[in-house]
């Protein structure tokens, strides 16, 4: 029954005269020079990540409208060679809530700024395992999965398929090296055998000559079930596919890829997120966009549930058992309280379909099977999150 009086009171609640809570989020990005790559097929979008943050803010704002909460996003994009820390100080003067896209060492410099003590920074791009280990910072949470989470996702799949013998090829960029190192650790953890471990160094134009160079390069590899490539910029592995000496399944940066997000995801309501993103950005949603979306949504979810906009209250809620984020990957996502990493299912995809969603059945964990992906509490060297 609708009594007139009750209706009147509710209407006042539904349409507040002024915002009762203002949540201001700063997007802080250090642009870096992209390493040159051979293919022109898929240029890196200029708004990679930022577009995801914008969608997250639109989602937050929609919820806020019904609660009298106002959301704003300020974008600070620092060109290569620019003064990132000056931009960071300017952003921190406006809000303690930052979502950052920057290399690991830049993130650490940001987190260590005197002005950033008491701030809450969400990392939306750097996958470095050290940031979740010894180099962790209490004011730095991670929305993007680590290299270790991606590597473990792939290892679980190879283990279940019994494709136990691996040939590893890495490029020479720092990201290639870091991913390859995480892959080696993961293969060891899961008992997979590395039958070849080689570095691809550019000394020819493989686009012209892939047919000749790749068979020679891979001819000496011991027999293996799968060739895993660490080629994070998408530079060389695409030309190796189907050109190997032996018939080889390719996985890693190319082929069967463990990745936080892909246009191939459709289940679990993902199609709705994809279409909202496409309408906003005019392109497909990538892993970096997803991480930025998740970061802004996590802040919004915490503000919605707590009615607070200060960094301490939001951080405490994000790291608590009460927090959960519906991330369109079939299960609630939460933060690891020992290093601030966002727990999440990891899809294994190829460009045209989802192959599997990890963790896979049978990989057990006393807390949550999501913690079979990436650094677990016992192996993380992170001490900055010491809990009472």
């Amino acid at each position, binding site marked *: *029954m*609708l*009594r007139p009086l*009750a*209706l009147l009171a*509710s*209407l006042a*609640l*539904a349409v507040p005269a002024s915002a009762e809570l203002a949540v201001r989020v700063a997007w802080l990005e250090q642009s870096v020079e992209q390493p040159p790559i051979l293919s022109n097929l898929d240029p890196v979008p200029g708004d990679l990540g930022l577009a995801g943050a914008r969608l997250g803010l639109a*989602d937050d704002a*929609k*919820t806020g409208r*019904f*609660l009298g909460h106002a959301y704003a996003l300020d974008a600070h994009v620092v060109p290569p060679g620019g003064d990132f820390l000056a931009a960071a100080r300017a952003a921190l003067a406006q809000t303690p809530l930052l979502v950052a896209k920057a290399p690991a060492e830049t993130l650490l410099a940001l987190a260590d700024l005197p002005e950033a003590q008491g701030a809450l920074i969400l990392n939306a791009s750097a996958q470095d395992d050290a940031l979740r280990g010894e180099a962790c910072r209490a004011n730095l949470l991670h929305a993007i999965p680590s290299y270790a989470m991606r590597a473990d996702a792939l290892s679980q799949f190879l283990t279940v398929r019994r494709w136990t013998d691996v040939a590893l090829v890495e490029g020479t960029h720092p990201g290639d090296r870091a991913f390859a190192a995480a892959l080696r650790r993961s293969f060891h953890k899961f008992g997979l055998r590395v039958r070849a471990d080689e570095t691809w160094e550019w000394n020819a134009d493989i686009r012209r000559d892939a047919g000749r160079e790749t068979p020679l390069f891979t001819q000496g590899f011991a027999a293996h079930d799968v060739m895993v490539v660490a080629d994070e910029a998408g530079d060389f592995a695409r030309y190796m596919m189907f050109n190997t000496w032996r018939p080889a399944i390719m996985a890693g940066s190319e082929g069967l890829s463990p990745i936080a997000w892909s246009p191939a995801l459709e289940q679990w*309501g993902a199609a*709705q997120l994809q*279409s*909202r993103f496409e309408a906003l950005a005019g392109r497909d949603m990538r892993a970096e966009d997803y991480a930025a979306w998740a970061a802004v949504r996590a802040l919004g979810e915490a503000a*919605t*549930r707590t009615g607070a906009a200060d960094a301490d209250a939001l951080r405490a809620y994000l790291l608590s058992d009460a927090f*959960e*984020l*519906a991330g369109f990957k*079939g*299960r*609630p996502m939460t933060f690891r309280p020992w290093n601030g990493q966002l727990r999440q299912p990891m899809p294994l995809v190829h460009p045209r379909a989802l192959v599997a969603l990890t963790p896979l059945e049978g990989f057990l964990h006393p807390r*949550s*099977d*999501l913690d079979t992906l990436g650094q677990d509490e016992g192996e993380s060297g992170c001490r900055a999150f010491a809990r009472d």
Partner: protein
Amino acid sequence: MRLALCLALLASPAFADEIWVTNEKDDTISVIDVATLEVTRTIPTGERPRGLTFSHDFSRLYICASDSDAVQVMDPVSGEILHDLPSGEDPEQFVLHPDDRRLYIANEDDAIATVVDVETRRVIAQIDVGIEPEGMAVSPDGRIAITTSETTNMAHWIDTETETLFANTLVDSRPRHAEFAQAGSQLWVSSEIGGTVTVFAVDDQRELAKIRFAIPNIHRDRIQPVGFEFSADEKTVFVALGPANHLAVVNAETFEVEDYILVGRRVWHMAFSPDRKLLFTTNGVSGDVTVIDVGRREAIKTIKVGRFPWGAAARPTSGG
């Protein structure tokens, strides 16, 4: 002569009660005969059919053809599409008002609820709601309509006289389905990712209870309440738990879970047979329908239907 007529009627396939199931990824409806528990007809629909409901006299079937951006109106006897209703974009689920005329439709991609008059075939109102509206319900007296928004995590309360929102209540993550209960004094809302069902008092929107679920050897992350239905006496609620592949049987008075029933994979929605003795669940991933004996609380049969069965609705044809 009378005997012969009876026999003839019994032999007629149109005589038995039916369960109609939309197959989201096959663009069809499977019609299940309640007496034989077999699929008797497969009827083509628009693209990505999800919600479905009959008019009060069962002479019309309304179908949310999500990717056709239309609500289709079908003659259930012939299986022919009679016409489309203007539905707004991407209609996912809807509810028919007690006046048998107003359809309240959730437009999933548009953050809008659309109200359509099925007789004039006109849009009466469009109401801004949260992101990804899905669950739709209307109170028995017709005065309140509800839509739940999956990403905004709210139940939005619509005054059906003015077609405007009069309240918004936060619920746990990804609210999926809503139903009024106890003569319209309670609103029940399921939260898929939150893993809960919340019961609200309708008069002041306060939370009366929150129901949680636990099944041995299934992590709580995978226990995801989606569709649910009340027994005829409203004393028992059957809740589909999605990828946990079980139904929960909940006591609607004590809010305690009494039983779990194993069904097919990713159980989604359900419908009772008209006599409420059997319950039919749509199992999205396994592409089948599980038949539950309501009295014994046991699964008695699995019926293969199309790909990704989504919604279910009963069509009584016997005795009436």
